[in-house]
């Protein structure tokens, strides 16, 4: 019974804007007014990261505000994906990986003792470059995460799956074939299914590692629209090689080069008046 109650609240959170109890009560208008006071969601301080002996990130410091889209750009091997994977400790799975410095999620050190990695990854979901649906039905793909977390009530699971698919902009396309295999979906639909799967476990932050690199322009446009909509409820951090995409969808943008964060700031400034010559040279295509 307790579970059912929890699930209903969970389902509600998917459907309503805002992630806190207070913001849920706000009207759309006051919600907009509160935007300038966005609080810090992720804070990275002096982060060094090593793959064995090789250092991949050098003293990275940045702050990501809640309910924004942050894009990391830079040439291949610059460390942007490494940083992304640090944010939900996916690099823990890499042999010889060492992290120094501090990453805070809502003020808590995610590498601190007593932090449960599974709970962290539930709060910080991830969507990968290549869509990776499970060889199961569309419904089961989305319900898989919540089930793992102990949710069994069918009605609530149905609601959650629907809310997640709606949140990922996929519901109207798949509502009549939820029992069909997810592998029958198009590339763009599979990627949105992966986003729905990430949403189903009610994350705070969604990490996206080049989510559109394998998609055609129409599927890419859909994902971009989705990313734009997702920031009402979530904080999105994405890595992209497509600079125009970073310019279109992100609020903040960080440029990385050889493991260093060269410049971090609001996207408009980065793309019109970058402060560092290296950023300018990269985004204007003079190198990289």
């Amino acid at each position, binding site marked *: 019974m307790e579970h059912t109650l929890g699930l209903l609240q969970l389902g509600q959170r998917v459907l309503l804007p805002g992630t806190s109890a207070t913001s849920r009560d706000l009207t759309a208008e006051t919600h907009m007014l509160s935007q300038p006071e966005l609080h810090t969601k992720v804070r990275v301080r002096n982060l060094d990261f090593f793959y064995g002996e090789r250092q991949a990130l050098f003293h990275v410091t940045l702050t990501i505000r809640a309910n924004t889209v942050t894009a990391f750009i830079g040439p291949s091997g610059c460390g942007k994906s490494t940083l992304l994977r640090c944010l939900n400790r996916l690099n823990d799975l890499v042999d010889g990986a060492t992290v120094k410095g501090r990453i805070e999620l809502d003020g808590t050190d995610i590498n601190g003792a007593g932090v449960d990695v599974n709970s962290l990854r539930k709060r910080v979901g991830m969507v990968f470059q290549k869509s990776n649906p499970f060889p199961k039905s569309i419904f089961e793909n989305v319900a898989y995460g919540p089930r793992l977390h102990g949710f069994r009530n069918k009605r609530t699971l149905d609601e959650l799956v629907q809310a997640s698919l709606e949140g990922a902009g996929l519901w109207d396309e798949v509502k009549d074939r939820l029992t069909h295999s997810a592998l029958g979906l198009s590339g763009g639909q599979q990627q949105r299914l992966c986003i729905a799967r990430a949403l189903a476990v009610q994350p705070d932050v969604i990490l996206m590692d080049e989510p559109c690199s394998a998609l055609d322009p129409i599927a890419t446009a859909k994902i971009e629209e989705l990313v734009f909509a997702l920031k009402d409820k979530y904080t999105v951090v994405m890595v992209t090689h497509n600079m125009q995409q970073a310019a279109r969808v992100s609020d903040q943008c960080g440029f990385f080069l050889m493991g260093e964060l060269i410049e971090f700031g609001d996207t408009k400034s980065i793309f019109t008046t970058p402060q560092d010559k290296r950023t300018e040279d990269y*985004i204007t295509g003079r190198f990289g």
Partner: protein
Amino acid sequence: MQRHFDQELAQLKEQLLRMGSVVEQQIQRSMQALVDRDSDLAQTVVEHDRDVNSLDVDIDDTCIRLLALQQPTARDLRFITTAMKISSELERMGDLADNIAQRALELNVEPQLKPYIDIPRMAHWTMRMVQECLNAFVNSDPRLARKVCGDDDFVDDLNEQLFRELLSFMLENPKTITRAIRLTFVAKSLERIADHATNIAELVVYMVEGKNIRHIAPSVSF
């Protein structure tokens, strides 16, 4: 890394400079037509205005093509958007030179109202501003651009001074009104050309520094 895009940007810059030199020549000729009472030259200026217009259209086309195909960012983006605006400013200057030439055609068929002293002086300063704003653009020189912005006040003062003088002619002898008003139009055109040069100078500051100084009081921007 030398990009093909760089060559296209260089060509765009060349197009703008060509337009700048045509406009400079138009202004200079329109004044010469007035001072030397040379109506043939004035007619040439009127006919050449279409050249300026067609250069404006060409530059716009180039800019739109580069924006669509190259999706420029940072200084490339600032350069192209500035080029589009500079082209419009030059086109307006060309129209004003055409206006001066048309006034010259009208004035040349009547006796000269007075020796032209202040109008050529005003034209000298205005043309200097035009040359300097274009030099600031070519050399990406925000210091020179800011100087041009400062010079505009001087041209404004000359315009005001000329207006007062011509007003005194009109008050003294109503028969001079038509010619005096035509001369005030000429002075006003020069004053407007100087304003367009100032606009170009402000655009150059934005292009180089990414800092917008337009529509800001001088005490704040300098």
